[in-house]
């Protein structure tokens, strides 16, 4: 079981390394969107501190959305998806591998760069740590939920817009608890409660989403 997940992750990471433009463009999108806010709002530390969690999280959601349409589309176009569906394992395991690989190349870089961007919003060290932790814990849920949308819109013309309409509303809980964790830390209340809820969302979506995506992929392959 772990062998197949590892094989899928290994292959997807190798492909991502050969096509670094995809990773870099999503990351730069995140950096630029977040950096525009302090420039547009002006140097008011009080206001920036208040806006920071929401801005960073919304930008993280949008940056994740950028790479979602390609999650299964490339494999579908060149016929690899058929072969994956015909492999002698449940398709859900294959999708689990793809979700983890997607997180490694889209969610993880966001978490690593977020504290640097947070400095522009005059966040304290505690808040920056909490921000990194929240993005680290919350983004796997984004990849998981996104996989369902990517599978459902596979092969549709104009699927990208439909994908956003399907997936963004489902991202709302992650946004609320993710931004809430940082907010609570800024207010001095401690964000651990929010983090626990975020972790619960991540585990639930990693357990459930691959199987729902697998069912949608089977329909797309008919």
């Amino acid at each position, binding site marked *: 079981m772990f*062998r*197949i997940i590892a*094989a*899928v992750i*290994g*292959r997807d990471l*190798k*492909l991502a390394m*050969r*096509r670094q433009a995809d990773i870099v463009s999503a990351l730069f999108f995140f950096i630029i969107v977040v950096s525009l806010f302090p420039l547009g709002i002006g140097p008011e530390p009080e206001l920036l501190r208040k806006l920071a969690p929401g801005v960073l999280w919304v930008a993280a959601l949008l940056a994740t959305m950028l790479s979602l349409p390609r999650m299964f589309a490339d494999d579908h*176009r*060149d*016929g*690899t998806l*058929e*072969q*994956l*569906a*015909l*492999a*002698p*394992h*449940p398709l859900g395991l*294959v999708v689990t591998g793809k979700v983890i690989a997607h997180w490694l190349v889209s969610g993880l870089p966001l978490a690593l760069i977020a504290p640097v961007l947070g400095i522009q919003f005059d966040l304290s060290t505690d808040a920056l740590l909490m921000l990194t932790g929240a993005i680290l814990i919350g983004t796997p849920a984004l990849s998981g939920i996104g996989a369902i949308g990517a599978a459902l819109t596979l092969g549709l013309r104009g699927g990208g817009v439909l994908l956003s309409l399907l997936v963004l509303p489902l991202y709302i809980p992650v946004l609320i608890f993710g931004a809430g964790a940082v907010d609570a830390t800024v207010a001095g209340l401690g964000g651990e409660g929010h983090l626990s809820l975020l972790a619960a969302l991540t585990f639930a979506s990693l357990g459930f989403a691959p199987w729902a995506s697998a069912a949608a992929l*089977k329909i797309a*392959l*008919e």
Partner: protein
Amino acid sequence: MLEADNLECVRGERRLFAGLGFKLEAGELLYLQGKNGSGKTSLLRMLIGLLPPEAGEIRWKGESIKSDEFRADLCYLGHLNAIKEELTPLENLLASAHLADEALSEDDALDALEQVGLAGREDLACKYLSQGQKRRVALARLVKEKRPLWILDEPFVALDIAAVDWLAGIISGHLQRGGLAVMTTHQLVDIPAGTVRELRLS
């Protein structure tokens, strides 16, 4: 071994075929023939379990084909090559073997690539290969393939004459080992070994 019973296929509003059945035993090859749009590829997709039939049933070794065991016995080659443009031929072969849970050593993979005439190009990304060479990378999977049921969709397309002969040899070797094969083709290629049966869709 492979039995199809009373299959019916409906695509869109059209019924492509109904009441179709056949039985295939070890060492037998089934040639599917028919015009474009007669449902050859649909039938193949039913046989591999990706397209559920409107009616009827397909059995492998007496069991329904919905099991993981059936897929462990199946090797499918579609009209898409299922190779990654960014990876080299060698990496493609090894990756597809890993994902299908098959043991394939690097030496075996190199040997297979040499047999399909890609020696010296193992380390070149597939996007730099020609259409025919890409097809050869996809076909290289068959060289070391030990799974008993091969389902091939137009395997001879884009191949030159020498490669067609080579592939016919690979398929007859498979039949001699007691394997089964189902394939569609527009060019009737002589397969030297095994029992060849034909099914014409109209």
